[in-house]
């Protein structure tokens, strides 16, 4: 079982920078440890000197007990003592102390000189990797360029190991020059993770923080980084509800954090608030997710919904390295409902008419004409809108080029990327180009500077009529509407709305987003252990929208019908957002009396956000091809604009204390002020505390140490705030400006103002408190890794707009009222191992969150089909309880009916249960008192399973993801045949009849607007399980063998095939994606890609 794994070498950057600032001469140490293991002794030495000790535990028995009773002794002297009689000695290489065998044994056979270079998965040279001749103690470690040289016997096998990577073996045979790429371990004990305003060793974390490396993201081959996060962190629910080009996924950490306020996590890119999707995944170094209050509270008021910290790549080495990643692929919808053909449609409509005691809408002659001669596309249409409007296969491609390198004083990482996605309908696409450069300069030994520059441009193209509206019409329109006539002219669709014509000829809307982020940092080290860091970041985001509404002519029956719409028009909008952030922070860390590690941190930050917009439009463009603003009718000109501003100011501090690497404590506090509130309610203080105990470091744990590498329990409690409202001035009662009227004979435009919202000057922070208990286990030489967290998240003083009665006539004010609780647990289990030549890893994640509104001051919200009430999850589905169908007239006569008029109820109607009445008991009537909670829309039991394997040059990945429990309320076209004059889908034909009494749908009826069909009132009939499991991603890759590469000058070439959303098991209505919106949506897509990664 004891594989060659944990080669203890320090983290590169940290140690190298320290090497620059500390002297390497003899350091004195004092120990009173008594008997401890050799491994622990090495750790002690490391913690009290600049040295990093490297050894191979497959050869050296590090569990052997040694005495550590030294008074003021040279480190190297201590080391000699410790290694006495072990057959090992040490070598010094810069800061590294490498434990090597004593040159006692003579190596038999002919000696051979081998050399090579070792790189990591990114192709970066690996310093300090251990290279050993297998079965001997003959070995060395790699130098700063990742190079090594060794004398070995002729038939030797090289064993290469490095912390965080799998150990690999290479037979020497005739080869003398090796290029070795390490296979990355997904986790290891010495991993450092990014936390708020700094980094921390993973083993020393006391909060619920989880991190993802760029490797996990990149292998998904998705253009949107938010989508790529799906299933990677337990307790983080990522939903991809749209397949529109450039669409992003929504992210929620540990349940819904707020009723009305924002409930998406704070995303910080290199410390500055940003958009997950603005970054090319190849430029991401790592992502940390701060889930509990204690880890997030350093971000105080902004972090109530968790924090995602994105760290981008920086140049580590001087050596120039160039990588290219690219893929090309195609996308196709996962599932859309199937509308029926014309004859089926007419027969279904006629059936619905008969079911409602009315004459059939379509005569026998009309239907017969279709049956005998089919559609002529001049008088009779049988349009398959879906086939006409949707492209079944659309293109996507992505290219990313990274260059990294520099000198000791100046290093740069530059990434340039291009992404293109074609939409499912004509004139619909998204493209994004981005350049990111991260530069670091060392000005003096104590002063460093950094400059991050990110320039991004994305262009979103949609038909002017709106992508969603076109897709909605496409899926909903009846086959009898004309799309294209047999002479090539446009059909009239519905009242001139012809989604095909709209998409092709209706004009194009182009949204041009330009984003420039700059961040400069200066870092000063006035004394040892102290760092003062200041940074200023500025983001300027501009959005320019250009929209031209073109008209098209429609024809039917050979006659011109109309020009739709009646006039051509142009609309342009410019929007600017400026965000400035100033940050200053001081960190000091030190270890006192060898055992007391201390780190203190204090910071100050200001944030400023400014919005400004300007828009204009004109109508009546008379001349084809002349479409600019000035070509329009001047009398129809309209201009609009607005501006708003938000500022925040914050003070924050953190204090860490670690005793003997066993007992960990962290205290954090943040004091935040927001301009959203009046001076009196402006400031909020958000403290937190967390503790950890590394049980595995206790002496009594030693017997288990062989099996369990690390065992830690931790607990945290903290409070957070939330102020993220749509409104910037919620405390002020303001007058809306968008009211106008036209007085006089000449209808003069007159501006008007009005009150439309109630205000509340007392508005202040929403608060959340979170308790988290966590357990981390790493066992069997880091092959097993388990993290478990249980949490209780209490949200109080919720920011919400209580729905006031319509009679008040204004929209509700913001209030701080009500409490809600999310409690749940997150579990992730990872196993990785090797069977023969196959290395594999399995990561399983499962999490649950249960939401309950605990206090609404006795109030409740009821909104049409959902309710928020004390003791239930927010927005629980609400309505009548369906009890199957009425099967006979007798049954109707003996049962209460909704609306009280039994003449209006027929067999095949939904039967509702009389569960209550005005007196709280069933009253023989179906009234509003019979409504109850009929489902929970919140996803429960989110799970994912990630399988990865590597064999020779092949790599293979499978990713499954899903939700175990959720209720979906189906409404609109998703549920109702003929909804709003629409068509009927094939699966909806399974409706009640005498011969089909347990049909999926009630008696087929025409669905009028306003009301009238009592089957459509909100009831449990329309609630279906939203549980699903989805094969989210499968990818298979092949890397060219070294023998081919070495001739080409390339370091690494990998090809891969990948598929996204390949297979789904779900229970809702057919044609509806479990992740998509129910009623109308841009279909979620399957994506198949072929890609290549090249490194020079």
């Amino acid at each position: 079982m004891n594989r060659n794994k944990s080669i203890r070498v320090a983290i590169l950057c940290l140690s190298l920078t320290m090497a620059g600032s500390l002297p390497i001469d003899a350091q004195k140490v004092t120990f009173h440890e008594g008997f401890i293991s050799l491994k622990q002794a090495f750790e002690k030495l490391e913690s009290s000197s600049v040295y990093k000790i490297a050894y191979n535990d497959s050869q050296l028995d590090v569990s052997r007990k040694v005495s550590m009773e030294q008074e003021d002794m040279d480190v190297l002297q201590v080391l000699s003592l410790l290694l006495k009689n072990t057959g090992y000695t040490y070598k010094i290489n810069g800061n590294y102390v490498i434990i090597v065998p004593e040159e006692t044994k003579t190596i038999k056979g002919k000696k051979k000189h081998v050399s090579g270079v070792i790189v990591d998965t990114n192709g970066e040279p690996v310093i300090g990797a251990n290279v050993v001749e297998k079965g001997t103690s003959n070995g060395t470690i790699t130098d700063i360029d990742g190079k090594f040289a060794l004398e070995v016997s002729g038939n030797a096998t090289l064993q290469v190991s490095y912390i965080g990577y799998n150990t690999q073996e290479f037979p020497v045979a005739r080869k003398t020059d090796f290029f070795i790429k390490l296979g990355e371990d997904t986790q290891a004990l010495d991993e450092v993770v990014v936390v708020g305003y700094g980094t921390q060793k993973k083993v020393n974390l006391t909060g619920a923080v989880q991190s993802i490396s760029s490797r996990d993201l990149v292998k998904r081959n998705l253009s949107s980084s938010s989508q790529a996060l799906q299933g990677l962190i337990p307790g983080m629910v990522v939903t991809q509800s749209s397949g529109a080009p450039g669409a992003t996924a929504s992210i929620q950490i540990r349940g819904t954090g707020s009723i009305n306020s924002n409930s998406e996590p704070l995303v910080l890119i290199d410390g500055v608030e940003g958009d997950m999707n603005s970054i090319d995944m190849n430029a991401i170094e790592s992502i940390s997710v701060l889930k509990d209050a204690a880890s997030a509270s350093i971000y105080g008021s902004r972090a109530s919904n968790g924090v995602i910290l994105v760290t981008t790549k920086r140049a580590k080495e001087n050596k120039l390295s160039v990588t290219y990643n690219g893929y090309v692929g195609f996308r196709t919808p996962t599932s859309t409902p199937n509308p029926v053909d014309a004859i089926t449609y007419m027969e279904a409509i006629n059936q619905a008419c008969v079911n409602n005691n009315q004459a059939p809408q379509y005569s026998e002659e009309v239907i017969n004409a279709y049956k005998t001669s089919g559609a002529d596309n001049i008088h009779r249409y049988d349009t398959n809108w879906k086939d006409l409007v949707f492209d079944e296969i659309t293109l996507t491609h992505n290219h990313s080029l990274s260059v990294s390198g520099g000198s000791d004083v100046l290093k740069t990482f530059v990434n340039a990327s291009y992404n293109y996605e074609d939409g499912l309908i004509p004139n619909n696409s998204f493209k994004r180009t981005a350049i990111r450069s991260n530069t670091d300069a060392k000005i003096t030994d104590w002063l460093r500077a950094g400059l991050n520059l990110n320039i991004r441009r994305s262009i979103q193209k949609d038909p002017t009529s709106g992508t969603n509206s076109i897709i909605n019409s496409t899926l909903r329109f009846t086959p009898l509407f004309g799309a294209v006539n047999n002479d090539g002219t446009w059909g009239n669709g519905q009242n001139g709305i012809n989604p095909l014509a709209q998409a092709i000829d209706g004009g194009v809307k182009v949204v041009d987003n330009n984003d420039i982020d700059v961040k400069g940092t200066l870092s000063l080290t006035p004394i040892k252990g102290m760092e003062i860091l200041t940074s200023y970041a500025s983001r300027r985001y501009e959005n320019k929208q250009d929209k031209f509404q073109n008209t098209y002519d429609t024809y039917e029956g050979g006659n011109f019908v109309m020009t739709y719409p009646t006039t051509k028009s142009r609309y342009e909008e410019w929007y600017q957002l400026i965000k400035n952030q100033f940050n200053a922070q001081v960190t000091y860390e030190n270890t006192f009396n060898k055992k007391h590690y201390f780190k203190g941190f204090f910071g100050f930050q200001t944030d400023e956000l400014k919005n400004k917009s300007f828009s204009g439009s004109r109508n009546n463009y008379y001349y084809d091809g002349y479409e600019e603003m000035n070509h329009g009718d001047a009398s129809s000109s309209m201009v609009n604009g607005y501006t708003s501003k938000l500022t925040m100011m914050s003070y924050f501090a953190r204090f860490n204390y670690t005793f003997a690497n066993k007992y960990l404590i962290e205290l954090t506090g943040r004091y935040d002020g927001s301009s959203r509130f009046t001076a009196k309610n402006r400031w909020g203080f958000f403290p937190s505390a967390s503790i950890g105990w590394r049980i595995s470091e206790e002496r009594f744990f030693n017997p288990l140490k062989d099996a369990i590498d690390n065992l830690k329990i931790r607990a945290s409690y903290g409070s957070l705030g939330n102020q993220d409202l749509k409104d910037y001035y919620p405390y002020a009662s303001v007058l809306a400006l968008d009211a106008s009227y036209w007085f006089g004979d000449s209808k003069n435009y007159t501006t008007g103002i009005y009150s439309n919202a109630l205000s509340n000057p007392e508005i202040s922070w929403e608060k959340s408190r979170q308790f988290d208990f966590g357990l981390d286990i790493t066992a069997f030489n880091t092959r097993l890794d388990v993290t478990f967290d249980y949490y209780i998240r209490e949200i109080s003083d919720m920011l919400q707009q209580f729905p006031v009665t319509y009679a008040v006539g204004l929209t509700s004010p913001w209030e701080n009222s009500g409490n809600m609780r999310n409690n749940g647990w997150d579990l992730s289990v990872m196993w990785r191992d090797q069977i023969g030549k196959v290395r594999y890893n399995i990561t399983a994640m499962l999490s649950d969150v249960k939401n309950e509104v605990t206090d609404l001051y006795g109030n409740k919200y009821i909104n049409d089909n959902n309710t928020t009430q004390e003791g239930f999850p927010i927005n629980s589905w609400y309505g009548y309880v369906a009890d199957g169908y009425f099967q006979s007239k007798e049954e109707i006569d003996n049962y209460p009916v909704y609306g009280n008029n039994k003449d209006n109820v027929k067999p095949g109607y939904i039967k509702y249960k009389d569960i209550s009445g005005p007196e709280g008991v069933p009253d023989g009537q179906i009234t509003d008192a019979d409504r109850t909670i009929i489902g929970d829309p919140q996803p429960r039991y989110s799970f994912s399973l990630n399988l990865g394997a590597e064999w020779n040059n092949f790599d293979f990945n499978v990713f499954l993801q899903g939700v175990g429990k959720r209720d979906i309320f189906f409404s609109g076209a998703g549920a109702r045949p003929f909804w709003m004059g629409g068509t009927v889908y094939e699966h909806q034909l399974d409706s009640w009849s005498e011969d089909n009494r347990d049909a999926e749908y009630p008696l087929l009826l025409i669905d009028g607007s306003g009301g009238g069909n009592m089957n459509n009132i909100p009831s449990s009939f329309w609630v279906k399980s939203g549980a699903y499991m989805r094969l989210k991603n499968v990818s298979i890759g092949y890397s060219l063998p070294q023998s081919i590469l070495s001739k080409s000058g390339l370091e690494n070439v990998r090809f891969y095939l990948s598929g996204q959303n390949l297979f789904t098991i779900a229970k809702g209505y057919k044609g509806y994606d479990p992740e998509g919106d129910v009623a109308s949506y841009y279909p979620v897509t399957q994506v198949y890609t072929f890609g290549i990664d090249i490194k020079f």
Partner: protein
Amino acid sequence: MKRYRLIYTICVLLAFINISCSDFLDVEDTNSSYTNEGFYTNENAIREGTTGVYSNIYMQVVGELAHTTIFDFYTGLALERNENTTIGAGGGLNADNSDILKFWSQLYTNVARANAFLTGVKPNMDNLSEKSLQYVSEVRVLRAYYYYLLIALWGDVPFYMESPTPDQYEVEKTSRVEILDFIISECNESAEYLDWIATDRGRVDKSFAYGLINRMALLGGSLDFGGKSAEYFRIAAEAASKVIGKRSLALNYEDLFVVEGQAKADVRNEMILEMIYNVDGTNVHRNWTGFGFVSRMQGQTSRHPSMMLADTYECIDGKRIDESPLYDVHHPQKNRDPRFKATLWMHGDTATCNNGSLNTVIINAYDGETQQYNYTTGKWEVRNNDDINSAAAWASFTNAGCGYIIAKYSKETSQNISYTSQNVPIMRYAEILLGYAEAKIELGELDQSVYDAINQVRNRVGMPDVSADRIGNIEKMRQLVRRERKVEFAIEGLHLIDMRRWGIGDLENEKPMYGRPIEEIRYEGLSETDIPNFKKSDRHDLNDIPDYESYKEKLKMRDVNRYWDPKFELWPIPQQELDRNPKLVQNKGY
């Protein structure tokens, strides 16, 4: 070097202190909106606040139809396209009805806008200019109008005279009598500050204030609010009499509903209050009526008039169709009150529309082809009949409807019919005349002024004076004034409340709707005796309710489930409102 370290450190600290001490977090002055408190102090602000109250006057519930154009579809005079969706048929009028919720919430939105404005102006009332007082009065009258609709449609309702404070959000209903008395006094007080005819078209004026009192008091009188029936009829008559002579009727009835006609001074004089629609301006409101689209090569028809309405029009001799020798069962449009043609189209009529260009077609309820006039060649040509043979034919006047098309508002030829901008009247002078007459009749005061008022309305369209047999006969005068209100104001939003006032909902809605002769019979196939019976009972006769029982199998039938329930006298309070305000009690029967 040490010195630079120190300098840098100090700079950071200074930045800290500098920002911390500034008013960095006070950003209110960057708000681009005005703040409500203390805003309404000058004439400009008051004018803009008034405009804000007008801007939502349309209260569009369905598509872009102004609220007044929808009300008749809750009566026997008109039909929604989908069968069994009007009134009780099919059971759609329940607390969950979304259109009812929209009416409710839009009316209260407008009340709230007015209340917020009036509350904002209140502290400055003593210092207002004459013009400002006029604006404030306009808002008070508008608020009265919205409350009138609320009590007429729902009965007792929540009542706010000022912007409510949070403890007033959940209130009990206030009696409709109390509200009616308040809004009548509001109009009386406000009228003082208003001109008889507003300088700015579209504004509330004195004629509207008194006209509204007439309308509101008729409601109180007919439904005997608080047992004060006679008192209200007196108020109604007096209010109307003040306006009589101050305004006049348009010369041509059809001018009232088309853009070019509305530009004429005589039309302006009749239009007491209009909702202004505008097509060329910076914001576009489309009076997209959707009436009779298919026939005019445009989209689908969503609303239809009933044959009950058509048969209410007298023949040109001033007699009802069952009494006039001029009535022709084969060509019902012949020899009729000219308002028939101004309001309705039917089989055989020639209709002109503008769907981007002018088209003139012959409306045909039965054949797959029809005639179209070719403006280039000047000849009639055969064309496909879209009402019978097109994708939208199922929604046409003949298939979904009863064989009639609403021509009122739809005869626009100067603008594209899907994008027209004719104003929609809320009140016309004709209503003052008929409202005066009705109040006087109910008071039993049949003097010459009553006949004069009715004659004016009838003579304008060429109908004869009140016939001699009616003079001095209250019942017959009541019959005539009700008939006049129906035919004069069809699809103008008065009949729903009139139906309730007169208590005739049961008569109009008790039976399925009948329409044009079926395909096998056609108009040619009707026999001379196939004339509806208006005399099923005295009530039917008094209210001109036709009965088709004797030849119903020859007619198209619609809304087989149509029924009447006394609860329909009031609309249900929306379920969502009951959920939000537990103190509200649902209207009886729902």
